């Protein structure tokens, strides 16, 4: 007997009304698969052209246990999710779809995974994202829903895997603001990895992931404070913004550290041309 998806019962939290005009097509596909589920590898690839690729829209929303960005989800992604829920896709079937899918099918499956129970299949799919290094898949797994954060919190993946995924996210220079709930994954270990990557890049004369400063501020490792304060004087607007955000995120600013940060923020403030950064510097410049 094929393994059940993640070894847990299927979630049923995706409201079918979200499928809009694609709902009849989804119902037909489900009926076809209930009659012969060996058709799954044939039905799944056609979903984008049949259900449509237009974004669902509606921004970030909580649906069941998941938080997803419906501006990134397309109608076919929701059809895929609903279909896989309804037929209670097994681990083996889901992995087969991923391994033999094209780029778009894989992205569709990763988005759908937000609505499937956390478990071994989630871990396997996230492992494939880590291994294959495709930007679209990294975005589907880390940006279009909070799958990574939930998988890490649930213990579906260990901290080392979560850290390696976020390190690759940084390596691909993807924006932290799109990685839903990634701030929950901040840790000293991750900060150390990000800082080491930054140092390697700097030594090679290459650009550093701008969000490094913001992320290490949440869980500073040795050397992070100096990097953050130095970041306030960086020539790149994005780095200065990230450094200011990182300093504001410092988890326990002692009086001495707060005074030190306030001093450098105050020094920078009159010379800072960007209003959004100035606003953050003003907050940092008030140690109380």
């Amino acid at each position: 007997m094929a393994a059940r998806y993640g070894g847990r019962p299927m979630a049923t939290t995706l409201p079918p009304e979200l499928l809009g005009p694609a709902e009849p097509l989804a119902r037909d596909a489900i009926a076809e698969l209930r009659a012969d589920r060996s058709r799954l590898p044939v039905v799944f690839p056609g979903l984008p052209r049949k259900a449509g690729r237009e974004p669902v829209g509606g921004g970030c929303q909580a649906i069941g246990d998941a938080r997803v960005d419906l501006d990134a989800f397309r109608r076919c992604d929701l059809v895929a999710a609903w279909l896989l829920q309804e037929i209670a896709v097994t681990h083996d079937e889901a992995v087969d779809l991923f391994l033999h899918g094209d780029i778009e099918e894989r992205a569709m499956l990763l988005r759908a995974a937000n609505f499937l129970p956390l478990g071994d299949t989630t871990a396997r799919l996230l492992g494939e994202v880590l291994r294959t290094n495709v930007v679209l898949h990294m975005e589907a797994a880390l940006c279009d829903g909070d799958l990574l954060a939930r998988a890490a919190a649930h213990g579906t993946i260990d901290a080392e895997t979560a850290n390696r995924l976020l390190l690759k996210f940084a390596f691909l220079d993807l924006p932290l603001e799109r990685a839903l709930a990634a701030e929950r994954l901040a840790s000293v270990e991750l900060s150390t990895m990000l800082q080491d990557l930054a140092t390697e890049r700097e030594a090679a004369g290459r650009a550093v992931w701008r969000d490094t400063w913001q992320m290490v501020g949440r869980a500073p490792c040795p050397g992070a404070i100096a990097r953050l304060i130095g970041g306030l004087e960086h020539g790149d607007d994005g780095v200065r913004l990230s450094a200011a955000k990182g300093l504001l995120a410092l988890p326990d600013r002692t009086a001495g550290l707060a005074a030190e940060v306030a001093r450098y923020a105050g020094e920078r403030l009159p010379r800072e041309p960007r209003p959004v950064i100035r606003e953050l510097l003003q907050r940092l410049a008030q140690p109380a």
Partner: protein
Amino acid sequence: MLIFEPHIHMFSRITDDYEKLSFAGVRAVLEPAFWLGQSRTSVGSFVDYFETLIGWERHRAQQFGIHHFCTMGLNPREANDDRVNQAVLDILPRYCEKDSCVGVGEIGLDDQTKTEEKFMAEQLELARRHDLPVLVHTPHRDKKKGFERCIDIVREQNFPMERVLLDHGNEETIKITRDLGCWSGFSIYPNTKMSPQRMVAIVQEYGIERFVINSAADWGVSDPMMVPRTVVKLEQAGVPRERVEQLVWKNPIRFFGQSGRLDEAMLAKPATANLRETFEGNSVLRGQDPDKL
């Protein structure tokens, strides 16, 4: 002038060819699944090959602004190989539904055996089930008889002629196919098969309706630039530009557009080119700076 190259085996070509094609106006290529010059010994080799056609090759083409499409099928030569033939037929339905697959092919005849005929007939049925047109490889030996037999099989299967492209045609085969309602493909080769000059003569005599031209470039002595070269020869011979454009752009789109997965609007812009993108961590750059290319 925009060009749709409707038969080229980029799997066997180097990345520089994509760049040359792009510079010559090739906006889209169609890569039929085919024979690799050596028999495959297990179905797994076909799986990997089919997945290259929908994966790495698409990525590689896109880096040069070229849209990559394919046809999926069991080629006639390996249809004779009992180690793989039935197993390949069994896995084809999944690949026929892939978004960039716009037909079934190359199918057809090579040695003109009964086994080839059986698998050609079964793949016509496969195409019907997936609502796809078919690209038919015709024999290089005893071509006239092979053409006629291919047509017989299409008729026996009651497959619509307008969804059939009989490829590797020449002056002799036109006389057989012209009034059937099927499409005719001409593979322009540097030294053998059809030359640009002969193609000009065919166009002048028979026109361009339901014709496509291709390079069929592969691992052998062939030239991926044969369609652009033939375009020049056609224009030099006085064939009106809009007629040439219909031959090398609109006709292949019209034929493969019968799949419902391809139309001219989709090709209005070059494929997204982002030389920084990787496919499974692999890039065409080999360490080069994308800003300097």
